[in-house]
């Protein structure tokens, strides 16, 4: 099933896909190298990973036109693993990550994305942009003025070159930046750091390698704490990117298939000596912008990247780090959601708090999974708080029978249970109390025990308590909502609100 795809997904846009794939491949090379450096491994690990992941997701991914490769979000999570245990454990962790993602695809966990609110997504994206930017800082501290000049010139090329008439729109400006800066470095024989200084580049096609780690519990104990966040962050970024591509191209994608695709891609990367990766927001936008829509664009990007790297490795070694830094700053600027800053004023405070909390936790811990977790938690709490306001208790006195009648309206659950209790006047001396629950919804056990408490309290004060509409109120305390999908059932349960 995973191999089945529509013909037009492959061949519907051949010219656009090949061109866009080429542009993306050129931009992927500096990124893959930069992310390898972040993770602390040789550039070839990121480059092999980018090829494997792009190649596999092109064929079996759920979102045609999305670019997946080695990413910063994932690289940041593996830093300590590489430092403490070395590359082989990273490859093993990558395999396990893929396996976890594959399982989550079969368990259809992609649908859990609905719990990730818009603010959390924005926070994630902004945090990612900040982290990518921060990862460039080591290259920019304690260096000579030439590096600053080169980086500034690189950024100039990237953003100004497209304004050059005619060639500006056909030559990718990041490529121009890299070529020119490499040329200048070689011509002037500048003594600045180049890609060749950062580690080994690929000189052959990737080969099948089983990670050289002992297959023991000890190994699992080492890699699992890395694989779980890697799997979570990989899926999160992939599904978010898929949504962005969905929006841009006005088409739907298969999210669960994407989870499985990411899983198999990471398994493939792990077996071919690559690090774990996922979908890339920036590259996917570049792909769509360049006219890429189909699976072919991702495939071309992956294959072209590998060909270039293997055959041009002598040249790639000469690329100055400053050029790479310029490209990465572009990626970070492009990933950042500028809109979210403008919208800070218009959005409700709770949304801003969720977004900023997500960003701060990520920037503080360098772990996107934690940031998203905090964001989701906050979003849930804010929602519970909002909904708890939709509850009030009114009361009337029936003088003839000497009965106090309370009418409860709205949502009673853990968060509004105390307020529910506080609405009853236990000091009033009455013979009879009637509590009308017809228009209330009891969502959980806290609500029921709050009601029990109220009834007990009235009885202790010496009143007779009568409950009306208990069944209607408690019909929402169910964990299986299957039957409530049709409008009549919903009307029956939620009627009157």
């Amino acid at each position, binding site marked *: 099933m995973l191999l089945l795809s529509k013909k037009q997904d492959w061949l*519907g846009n051949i010219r656009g896909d090949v061109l866009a794939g080429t542009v993306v491949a050129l931009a992927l090379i500096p990124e893959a190298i930069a992310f390898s450096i972040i993770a602390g491994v040789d550039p070839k690990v990121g480059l092999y990973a980018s090829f494997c992941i792009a190649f596999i997701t092109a064929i079996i991914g759920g979102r*045609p036109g999305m670019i997946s490769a080695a990413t910063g979000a994932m690289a940041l999570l593996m830093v300590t693993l590489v430092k403490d245990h070395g590359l082989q454990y990273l490859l093993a962790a990558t395999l396990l990550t893929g396996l976890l993602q594959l399982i989550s695809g079969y368990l259809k966990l992609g649908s859990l994305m609905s719990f990730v609110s818009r603010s959390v997504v924005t926070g994630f994206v902004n945090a990612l942009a900040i982290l990518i930017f921060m990862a460039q800082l080591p290259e920019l501290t304690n260096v000579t003025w030439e590096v600053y000049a080169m980086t500034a010139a690189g950024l100039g090329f990237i953003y100004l070159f*497209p304004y050059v008439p005619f060639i500006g729109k*056909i030559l990718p400006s990041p490529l121009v930046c890299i070529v020119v800066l490499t040329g200048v470095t070689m011509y002037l024989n500048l003594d600045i750091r180049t890609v060749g200084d950062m580690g080994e580049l690929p000189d052959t096609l990737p080969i099948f390698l089983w990670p050289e780690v002992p297959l023991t519990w000890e190994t699992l104990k080492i890699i699992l704490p890395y694989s779980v966040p890697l799997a979570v962050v990989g899926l999160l970024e992939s599904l978010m990117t898929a949504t962005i591509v969905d929006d841009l*191209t006005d088409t739907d994608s298969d999210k669960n298939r994407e989870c499985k695709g990411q899983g198999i891609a990471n398994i493939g990367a792990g077996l071919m000596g690559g690090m774990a990766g996922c979908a890339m927001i920036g590259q996917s936008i570049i792909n769509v912008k*360049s006219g*890429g*829509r189909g699976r072919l664009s991702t495939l071309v990007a992956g294959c072209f990247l590998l060909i270039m790297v293997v055959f041009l490795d002598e040249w790639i070694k000469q690329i100055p780090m400053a050029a790479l830094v310029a490209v990465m700053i572009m*990626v970070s600027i492009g990933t950042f959601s*500028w809109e979210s800053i403008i919208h800070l004023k218009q959005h409700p405070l709770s949304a801003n708090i969720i977004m900023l909390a997500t960003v701060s936790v990520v920037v503080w811990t360098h772990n996107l999974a934690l940031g998203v977790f905090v964001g989701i938690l906050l979003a849930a709490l804010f929602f519970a708080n909002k909904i708890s306001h939709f509850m009030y208790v009114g009361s009337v006195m029936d003088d003839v029978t000497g009965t106090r009648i309370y009418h409860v309206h709205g949502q009673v659950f853990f968060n509004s249970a105390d307020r529910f209790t506080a609405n009853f006047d236990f000091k009033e001396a009455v013979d009879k109390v009637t509590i009308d629950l017809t228009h209330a919804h009891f969502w959980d056990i806290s609500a029921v025990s709050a009601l029990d408490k109220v009834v007990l309290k009235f009885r202790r004060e010496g009143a007779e308590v009568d409950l009306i509409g208990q069944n209607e109120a408690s019909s929402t305390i169910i964990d299986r909502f299957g039957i409530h999908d049709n409008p009549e059932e919903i009307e029956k349960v939620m009627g009157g609100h």
Partner: protein
Amino acid sequence: MTKEKAQVLACIDGSALTESVCDYAAWIAEKVDVPLKLLHTINHHHETSVSSDLSGNIGLGTQEHLLEEITNLEQQQNKLKMQQGKLILQAATEHIEKKDVFPSSTQRHGDLIEAVIDLENSMRVLVLGLRGQVHDNQENKIGAKLEAVIRSLHRPILIVNDSFTTPERIMIAYDGSKAADKAVEMVATSPLYKGLTCHLVCVNNNETTADKLLNQATAILQSAENIEVIPAKLRGKADQELCAYQDKHNIDLTVMGAFSHTRLHDMLLGSFTHKMLVNTKKPLLLLR
């Protein structure tokens, strides 16, 4: 599904066959006395890009700008397509109204297959041209989406491939299969076939089987009022013999079951329905 709502759905796209699709649809609508609906779909080619900027950089707000740009381009394109579709529908409506049939029309975005599946519940019969715009006037080609449409629906589908002549002699291709039985039953019960001559044709190399099959079916058809039944036995290759018979007896319309095998089976052995679609010169009414 309520009976009142069932209607004749005619799919038109402005190709050469559009006019006769309208004519046949109007004929059915009038005889069966159900409303006629014209459908035009606006196909969005999402798989192709509308713009291409190879500058390969991203900056602040690139995503938002890109979305805005693509949206604008697509808006213009689709407005134009919608306008064209409206003109096609209008022309078709005027053409049909000359026959005192008053159709409603609808326009839907997306794929034809999706659109007809969405409308399946309110559909009694679908009328469709053999070729669409893509293969317009290419004699030996059939429409790109035809098979997929036929396979995805469970309603009778009339495939129009020629200009309209009021059907007088119809032919049922009968082989004793479930679909063929359904065809016989439908011809016997539907008001559409009242007053027509019906050739019941069985292609089978075994005479006794053919006789047995024909007897059963003839009995069913004769029980219906106002249909003249002419049974016939043929030997040989079904598609060639049926087409030859069609020519010889001036058949105006052929009723048959369609695509009763899986795609895989057809891919390996060739599909009878597909051969009939390519070879027949007169409209086919297909039953699934």
